[in-house]
């Protein structure tokens, strides 16, 4: 427990709407250690980004944390006020968003934005902050930082811009980085560079990283452990290698089957029939039951809890017991 940077326990995020309360994240528990990358994978709307935003305290109203607990290095943070959270954000936990094109303010130079963030969190002078900005830029692999620091975001390519975003996240040496689809908007060759960079920074600095993505390939390459989310709940969580090689939850099995292989001679990719349910009509019992080929009677009645082995599935549960 002492090594855990982030601990989330039974997190529930709700959106009160006119049609009733929607539950976007339901009973999610997870933890990330120092120097560890936890991947969170799932389809759009599975609640993966919501989980990240809830930790950062950046849920868009009317979204709110309905229940559950969040600790950052042992400090309970889910009950903090906006101001108290604001002090933590950027300093102890930072974020990287999907689209580097829109994450940066187009009207300020990257230097302005870096210096502004550094001086927000550390008590340093202008020159010192600028020096630190230069150091950060070279650390994230931006060539000729002394020239580039005075450029505007639109003068950078997508990959370089995401490096700037990462540098901004690193300004105050945070313990935790929440990377929300950091590579989705980039082309594949740049993707590998960015994930490589994240991985290196995570190991070197002993940061904890929550890597939210829908790309299983990125997870397999980057993450140490991975959680699979479906309709707001964690379906399965475990070491990446084990989960990729021997997925247990029927949904994870389906996901893995849907990934094209470069080496194997696969004629047709398997697909999971149907769609993820809308938040407004999540079926009773296990939310995956309408699409599941292995469902048992219990699946239609009771919501499966995440077992100690990291799977939330009655069918797997029964198999193991018998």
């Amino acid at each position, binding site marked *: 427990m002492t090594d855990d940077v982030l601990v989330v326990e039974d997190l529930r995020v709700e959106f009160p709407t006119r049609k009733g309360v929607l539950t976007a994240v339901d009973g999610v528990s997870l933890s990330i250690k120092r120097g560890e990358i936890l991947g969170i994978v799932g389809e759009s709307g599975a609640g993966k980004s919501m989980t990240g935003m809830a930790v*950062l305290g*950046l849920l868009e109203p009317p979204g709110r944390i309905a229940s559950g607990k969040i600790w950052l290095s042992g400090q309970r943070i889910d009950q903090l006020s906006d101001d108290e959270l*604001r*002090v*933590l*954000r*950027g*300093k102890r936990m*930072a*974020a990287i*968003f*999907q*689209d580097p094109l*829109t*994450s*940066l*303010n*187009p*009207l*300020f130079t990257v230097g302005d934005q870096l210096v*502004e*963030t550094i001086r*927000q*969190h550390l008590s340093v002078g202008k020159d010192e902050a600028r020096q630190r900005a230069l150091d950060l830029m070279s650390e994230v692999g931006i060539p000729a930082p002394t020239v580039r620091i005075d*450029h*505007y975001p*639109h*003068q*950078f*390519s997508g*990959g*370089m811009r995401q490096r700037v*975003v990462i540098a*901004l*996240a690193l*300004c*105050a040496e945070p313990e935790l980085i929440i990377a929300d689809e950091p590579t989705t908007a980039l082309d594949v060759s740049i993707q590998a560079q960015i994930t490589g960079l994240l991985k290196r920074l995570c190991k070197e600095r002993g940061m904890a990283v929550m890597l939210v993505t829908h790309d299983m390939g990125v997870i397999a390459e980057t993450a140490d452990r991975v959680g699979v989310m479906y309709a707001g709940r964690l379906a399965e969580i475990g070491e990446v290698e084990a989960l990729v090689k021997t997925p247990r939850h029927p949904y994870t099995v389906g996901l893995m089957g849907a990934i094209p292989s470069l080496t194997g001679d696969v004629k047709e990719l398997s697909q999971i029939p149907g769609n993820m349910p809308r938040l407004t009509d999540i079926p009773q019992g296990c939310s995956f039951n309408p699409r599941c080929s292995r469902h048992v009677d219990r699946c239609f009645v009771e919501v499966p809890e995440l077992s100690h082995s990291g799977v939330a599935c009655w069918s797997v549960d029964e198999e193991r017991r018998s």
Partner: protein
Amino acid sequence: MLAFLLKRLLNAAFVMLAVALLAFMIFRFFGDPVEMMVNEQATQSDRAELRERLGLNDGLLTQYVRFVGNAVQGDFGISYRNQQDVMVLMAERFPATFELVIVATVLSLLIGIPCGVLTAVYQDRKLADGLQLASIVGVSLPSFVVGILLILVFSVTLGWLPAFGRGDTVDIGWWSSGFFTPSGRAALILPSISLSLFQITLVMRLVRAEMLEVLRSDFIKFARARGLPLSVVHWRHALRNCLMPVITLTGMQIGNLIAFALVTETVFQWPGMGLLFIQAVTFVDIPVMAAYLMLVSFIFVLINTLVDITYAYVDPRLRSDASVKGGVANGH
């Protein structure tokens, strides 16, 4: 940047030529200028002589070129009514209108922008509702009604401020300014409020709409994720991204304000160009009307050109200099 400047200036010159053509045509359509200038006893030869002297026997194109040539040098002829050089008349009146419009514009920005930001940020508070309501009133009240109400309250009832005129002025070269005397400043207050009220609400509503849009953008969310205080996020990052349309609007509206000043100047008997124009219309004083048209158009064009150049300054993406483009090319 130089090519951009040159292009804008060329555009502006063409627009002015077109306006000059219109102003020139007024002389042709409002009857025979000779008939208006001479008295009834003038003989036929007097008239012919005057016609020749005014160059009215030359070809249209020659006359137009001469008109433009004179206009460029600031020569719009002699006023039919008081036989004074039109440009001298204009120059006397211009500072009054200009100072009024400038004060009204500054007021509209100083009040409109903060109000717009506040109503956008505190969307669900009573204060925002109150300001919104007030802005509807401001948009709907015609400026002459506002002027009369202001006079009624502050001049007639309370007796705090003068109801008409410009107060004492100080001459700085040919420019007569009301900024430097207490009575000049006091006289400015009511007319400029009356002129800017509509403008304030316009700026406020524009800033509010832009802010609501910008506040939804990713870089605002990311700025918050960086741990910046809300005040910095709102007033620095969000507001600056709202300023483009405000600059455009303000620029365009300065032209409108000069036109609207006509009404305000009439209500407050403000000795500006608007009042001069109204008098000119009453007496069919065509040279004054033509000069007014040219001058107001010139201000319009000048401001629009300046606005375009300011764009390039505020938004670095619009600067078309080579170094910026080069930056993208060697981005990787």
